């Protein structure tokens, strides 16, 4: 382990921690390919480092998001149950099956989510379409609100289609247990488009959940010997710093800017996974 290696993995991690916190993705989608392709870290150790880094991103950013009331704690707790159950289901299957086809299918659904976010935004000119609480959301008091520092407005919102959100979260959990990524990538669009949750709240709530989902699979990764302390150490430091800095600025950025970034990143991940699925990448 050379000083250059430590420095580069640190820089990569600051970036992925920051981007992960801003987009509610945890950062694994950036971290794993960067570690593998630029530093030559073996795939399984990169995935192991990433699962711990996601916990770091989530915890560091959530401290801020919860303080600023961007995180919808009730919605997070509600969906968390489905996601962790899914993650355990996925972890059972993960080390048993080949997953190229699954990558392709999941990539296609991310591309679909990205496209629906894009066209909804283009059609309406809005980054967020307010909806009312459905029956379950009303009973569970899932509606939320926060002070938007970019516009200076107080935003209040209801949560629609909560049973569908629960189902999507379960699938997201299975996918993240199976592929090591995917939790946030599918929950943020679902909360935003189906549930009517504003982008920043969706990102912060997803970020809140990905730490628990990652914790549910982390022990399995450790068990299989996929977590190397000397690879993961610098990654955790970088991730913590990147996530803490980004989380401080998220509320000052316009929801539509975050959404456009999210759409672009989601489309990129989707295309990459489809290419992996058909064996090109």
């Amino acid at each position: 382990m050379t000083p250059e290696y430590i420095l580069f993995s640190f820089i990569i991690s600051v970036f992925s921690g920051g981007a992960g916190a801003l987009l509610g993705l945890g950062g694994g989608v950036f971290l794993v390919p960067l570690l593998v392709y630029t530093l030559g870290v073996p795939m399984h150790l990169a995935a192991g480092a990433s699962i711990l880094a996601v916990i770091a991103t989530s915890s560091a950013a959530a401290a801020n998001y919860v303080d600023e009331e961007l995180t919808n704690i009730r919605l997070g707790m509600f969906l968390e149950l489905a996601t962790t159950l899914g993650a355990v289901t996925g972890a059972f299957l993960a080390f048993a099956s080949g997953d190229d086809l699954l990558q392709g299918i999941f990539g296609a659904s991310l591309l679909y989510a990205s496209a629906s976010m894009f066209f909804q935004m283009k059609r309406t000119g809005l980054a967020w379409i307010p909806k009312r609480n459905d029956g379950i959301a009303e009973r569970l008091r899932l509606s939320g609100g926060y002070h938007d520092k970019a516009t200076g407005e107080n935003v209040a919102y209801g949560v629609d289609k909560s049973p569908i959100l629960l189902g999507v979260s379960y699938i997201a959990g299975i996918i993240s247990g199976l592929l090591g990524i995917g939790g946030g990538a599918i929950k943020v669009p679902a909360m935003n488009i189906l549930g009517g949750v504003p982008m920043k709240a969706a990102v912060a709530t997803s970020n809140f959940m990905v730490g628990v989902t990652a914790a549910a699979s982390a022990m399995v990764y450790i068990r299989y010997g996929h977590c190397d302390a000397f690879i993961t150490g610098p990654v955790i430091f970088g991730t913590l710093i990147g996530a803490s800095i980004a989380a401080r600025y998220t509320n000052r950025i316009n929801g539509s800017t975050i959404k456009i970034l999210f759409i672009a990143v989601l489309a990129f991940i989707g295309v990459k996974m489809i290419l992996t699925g058909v064996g090109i990448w």
Partner: protein
Amino acid sequence: MVERLMESRLSLILRIGVAASAALMAIGLALNLMTGDASYPTGILSVEWILFGDPFLEPSHILFMGFMILLATPVTRIVYSAASFIIRRDYVYATLTSLVLLVLIFSFTMGIRG
């Protein structure tokens, strides 16, 4: 108001967890480099070694403890939430969070037993 108190405590738990794990990792890594500790040369985390390892408080062990605290942070937040929902007699959410905790415990034992 009660909600706000819970939020600020949740945020505090997360901050403490992150700070404690970062501090332990920093100390462990620094001592590791300084002493050239060879008690755990491969660096691959192992649960048995962390829990029952012989070289207690050796540099590598301090480093590994940092990882364990990182892992324990989201779990602690769930435990706190469940407890505070129970105290507030919010039984729907108390049940929800307790179930999440059960799933986590299940996945941890699964991970430890293999």
